[in-house]
């Protein structure tokens, strides 16, 4: 019965083909540093899932943001765990993604034929930092508020277009409710959409080209 069901599904979904192409393929023998890529992806998923749960209670307005997080921490069952994982996961993700980049660099894995994989990787690294920057404001506490005040002020020092950039980042001259909602939108929609799509491309490239090998003295 189970075999029959599998055959039915396989005929329609091509499960065997997926297994053959994606899972049952030979790859070079590599070391533990090569686990950082998948760890980055898993961390992104974990941040996504915890983020969704946080979004159930979080309210992106200056009046309610802080209180809604206090409620998540004290009023919601396991809210402290979800927020704790999301909070620490952000830092860990930056570390893991950065180390992943360093490993790629160290082994020269950005070279032919993986240049394009590297390019998507750089965008992913920048997006990860963008997630850190936008997410930092959302708790709307003193630390968040003042760090973002300074962080959005810095581009203002650019000659000519500086003040314009600051204005776009803040949605006005001052940090306000508008800033909070746009950081929120960028944090939960824009950047995750870009990251999700690029992870897809990134992984497709890895499967297509195969993971790079650890170079020996002759490489």
């Amino acid at each position, binding site marked *: 019965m189970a075999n029959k069901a599998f055959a039915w599904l396989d005929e329609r979904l091509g499960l065997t083909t997926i297994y053959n192409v994606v899972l049952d*393929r030979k*790859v*070079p023998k*590599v070391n533990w540093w*090569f686990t950082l890529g998948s760890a980055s992806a*898993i961390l992104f998923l974990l941040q996504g899932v915890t983020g969704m749960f946080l979004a159930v209670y979080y309210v992106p307005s200056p009046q309610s943001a802080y209180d809604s997080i206090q409620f998540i921490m004290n009023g919601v069952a396991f809210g402290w765990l979800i927020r704790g994982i999301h*909070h620490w996961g952000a830092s860990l993700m930056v570390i893991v993604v950065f180390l992943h980049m360093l490993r790629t660099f160290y082994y020269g894995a*950005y070279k032919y034929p993986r240049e394009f994989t590297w390019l998507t990787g750089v965008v992913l690294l920048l997006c990860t930092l963008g997630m850190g920057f936008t997410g930092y404001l959302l708790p709307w506490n*003193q630390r968040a*508020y003042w760090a973002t005040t300074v962080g959005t002020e810095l581009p203002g020092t650019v000659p000519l277009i500086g003040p314009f950039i600051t204005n776009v980042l803040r949605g006005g001259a001052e940090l306000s409710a508008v800033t909070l909602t746009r950081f929120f939108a960028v944090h939960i929609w824009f950047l995750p959409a870009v990251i999700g799509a690029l992870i897809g491309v990134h992984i497709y490239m890895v499967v297509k080209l195969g993971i790079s090998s650890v170079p020996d003295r002759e490489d």
Partner: protein
Amino acid sequence: MDDEQKQRYLEKYKQAKQQGVKFFPDIIYKDLLVSFALFIILVMLATFVGVANEPKADPSDSSYIPRPEWYFLFLFEMLKFFPGQIEWVGTIVVPTVAILALFLLPFLDRKPARYPGKRWRAIGVMGVVVLAMIALTIRAVITTPPQVEAETVATTLSESILIGQDLYSINCVECHGPDGEGGIIEGVEGLEGYDMKSISAQDEMYTRTDDTLFNVINYGQPDLGMQPFGIAYGGELSIGEIETIVDFMRYTWDDRAELPQEVTQASAMPTLGEDQVPSYDVHIEPLVKRYCISCHRPGKKNNNYLMQSYEEVMNTGDHAPNVIPGDLASNLIRMLHREEIDAGGPMPPTKALKPEIIAIFERWVLGGAPQTPEEAAAAGTVVTGTLTAPQTTAIPTP
């Protein structure tokens, strides 16, 4: 890389694959192991370290020292090397160059060599950059002054109410009374003799929302003689602190709100045995905080009698000592009994304390005005019968 080199690479990679392992299960197994370990680390961090509780954002409090998330600290620190006019070099030129270099890396470094030992220049540059980032981060951590965070952050409603109660006692009692009952104001500059209406009455509570209460405290009501209390308007209270006061008022006075049990327990009078001597730390301090400190702190009209600590209660004041251990004719006790003496008039000026509270003060003075519970226990017992006779002075100091 020319075509020949490309062919050679692909050929060699093919070999490496053939001598290699299966993606499933070998690689997947390692990946899952590492990811699972990271997940466990996160759960541990969330459970045992948690997330620091910060005070609510307060745009008016510009004394706060901004600090970015730790992984941006190196950028922050780097800016210090580009002061004044050339700041934009640090804010835009350096980051742009770094990001561009990272993007263009595969096109800048086109040599076929992959083995790190053959690429000492590229590795060297990246090594220096990473070391610089680490060094700048460490430098930022060392040089940033510690945050002055005097404010206690309430994490639960109960904590908020209790913090609010203390802040109310300090800031509001001198005009509004300990229970918001109001009355004729005495001893407050500019408001002497003003008949303050009750702010804890039902119609007050029902017609004023939390926002209204917040705004009244924050902005004050200058036309009615109430100064602003918010930092932004010249007062001393942060936004978070004002919110705790609003919580205290709402949950203590509004008969529609139910005071959490924790608060009732925490603010209940500490138990005092029939013949036990009260101590300052356990019994007197909460009373002083609640009924006296609003006026008896620096900057108020109080004949320089401050009551913020045991030492101040015992030693300060123009008519010091106001508390003489064992002497029920101490200024403090006589004034609580609403006598008019050299040291001043009845205290608290608007309304007498309840007899049972005055009794605690008397027992304490009679027992030698001990500070700690240990000293109080050592002082032994007082005969409760003497309490109602404030003129009795005969009991010697232990």
